[in-house]
């Protein structure tokens, strides 16, 4: 047998691979947000224009000292200026405060008016700090967010049970800094990073972790060694999806469970009834569906989980094609047997 040139089909593959490599290189270089570099720094708020805020001038009286790491005052006999370091936990970043949920607040809305005098009266150290429920509880305006239910979930959580009253809402939701993301931010990656940084603020930082415990801070990466594609999971899924008891009626689940009860089954997310659709993708999917329609909303969203069949239309099409193939085979075979 004469062996002629047989490169033609192989060329198809070689050209295909070459084109794929070129397209990949071009697209990868113009890719906006590589996973590895998606850190909290990227979503740090930009400098804000203070003139837009009604209470900014009033608040500056506080920020003048508490907005920086050092503060200065004149001695009582006005003989010299003394500069001292501000305690780290008393330093508030204006840029973070003015993009937070409470950006329109006056400092004295929550803190005593007596802070207007300096030195601050000593008894103010005993001032009780308001919890979320103090303002948001029993208020019709916030009824849909079910703060009371959130509180009961939080009280049943591992955070509250293990640390008693030391662990308050403030641990995760510092009223000076916290801002809503999931409902307002269309960039899912930013929401995930922001929410995960809340957990990592303690679980990734030994200084904060040991404020409430004497235990050594566990190594997060080691603890999650069993999880395949760690980078992908950490940047695409919030910690709370696996570490809270999912509650579909709540906007965000607050019942943090002990580590032994955390989700470990792949099917919990990688299935048609993925828990992610009840929490993480809840807003994105419903908004996309509203804007783009059911098919496009589900297909074109940034809600990738490998495995679950999100698009029923494609499933129906594939079943029809498969059914027609089988029918063709059966009819053909029947005619062959009949001949």
């Amino acid at each position, binding site marked *: 047998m004469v062996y002629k040139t047989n490169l033609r089909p192989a060329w198809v593959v070689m050209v295909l691979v070459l084109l794929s490599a070129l397209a990949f290189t071009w697209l990868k270089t113009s890719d906006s947000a590589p996973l590895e570099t998606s850190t909290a720094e990227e979503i740090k708020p930009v400098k804000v224009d203070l003139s837009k805020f009604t209470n900014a001038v009033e608040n500056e009286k506080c920020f003048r000292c508490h907005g920086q790491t050092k503060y200065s005052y004149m001695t009582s006999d006005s003989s010299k200026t003394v500069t001292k370091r501000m305690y780290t936990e008393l330093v508030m970043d204006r840029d973070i405060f003015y993009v937070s949920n409470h950006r329109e607040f006056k400092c004295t809305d929550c803190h005593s008016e007596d802070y207007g005098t300096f030195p601050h009266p000593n008894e103010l150290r005993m001032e009780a700090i308001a919890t979320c429920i103090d303002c948001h509880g029993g208020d019709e305006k916030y009824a849909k967010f079910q703060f009371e239910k959130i509180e009961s979930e939080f009280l049943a959580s591992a955070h509250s049970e293990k640390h008693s009253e030391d662990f308050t809402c403030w641990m995760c939701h510092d009223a000076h800094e916290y801002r809503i993301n999931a409902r307002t931010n269309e960039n899912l990656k930013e929401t995930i990073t922001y929410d995960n940084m809340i957990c990592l603020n303690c679980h990734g930082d030994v200084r904060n972790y040991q404020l409430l415990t004497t235990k050594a801070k566990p190594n997060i990466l080691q603890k999650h060694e069993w999880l395949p594609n760690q980078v992908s999971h950490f940047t695409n899924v919030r910690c709370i999806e696996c570490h809270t008891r999912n509650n579909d009626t709540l906007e965000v689940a607050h019942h943090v469970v002990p580590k032994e009860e955390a989700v470990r089954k792949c099917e919990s997310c990688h299935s048609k009834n993925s828990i992610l659709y009840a929490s993480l993708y809840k807003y994105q999917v419903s908004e996309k569906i509203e804007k783009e329609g059911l098919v496009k909303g589900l297909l074109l969203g940034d809600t990738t989980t490998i495995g679950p069949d999100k698009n029923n239309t494609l499933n129906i099409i594939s079943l029809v*094609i498969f059914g027609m193939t089988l029918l063709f085979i059966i009819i053909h075979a029947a005619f062959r047997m009949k001949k």
Partner: protein
Amino acid sequence: MTKHSERLYLYPVWVRIWHMTNAILCLILIITGLSIQFSNPSTVVKFNAAVAVHNISGIILSISYLVFFFGNLVTPNGFHYVIPVKGFLNRLLRQFRYYTIGIFRREQPPFPVTEESKFNPLQQVTYVLLMYVLVPFVIISGWGLLYPEITISGILGLSGLDMTDLLHITAGFGISIIMCVHVYFCTIGKTPTSNFRSMIDGYHESH
């Protein structure tokens, strides 16, 4: 037309080993692929087990494909995948007519199997489409899903990972359909089982 003998040695050992490996891997990949695609807590093959088996089988399939690809470059077997352009459409239609009409009238196949041409025109097109388009697609997209961090995160406003996933399952579905038809058409031989025997002993029995 070339005169053909009763028994032709068409399938050398490497082709039979590759074919058997490929067949087993495809079956495993289809079963585990469906388990992943329709993942559910009650699925028989559990998601993590299905993913592990699917990944390992996919890696072996990639190696097996390289054996096929380079084997076809350096041995005469690759010649069977070269489609002569001249008169091709006409030959394709003749073969199609045979499968849809002629076969039921006990007509002789228009392109009997010979040592120079073991595939009829319809087989040639299907196998080239399968082995040089769909399988490379499924392998490349499979590696993209295996290492999602190397996959483009977005393309034309669409999720890159979603598109890779869609490409992978579409190519996988195409391969599954071709495989079903391939197995059925293999029953069109001297006897319904003779073509299956050919892939074991290497000898093709003519009609």
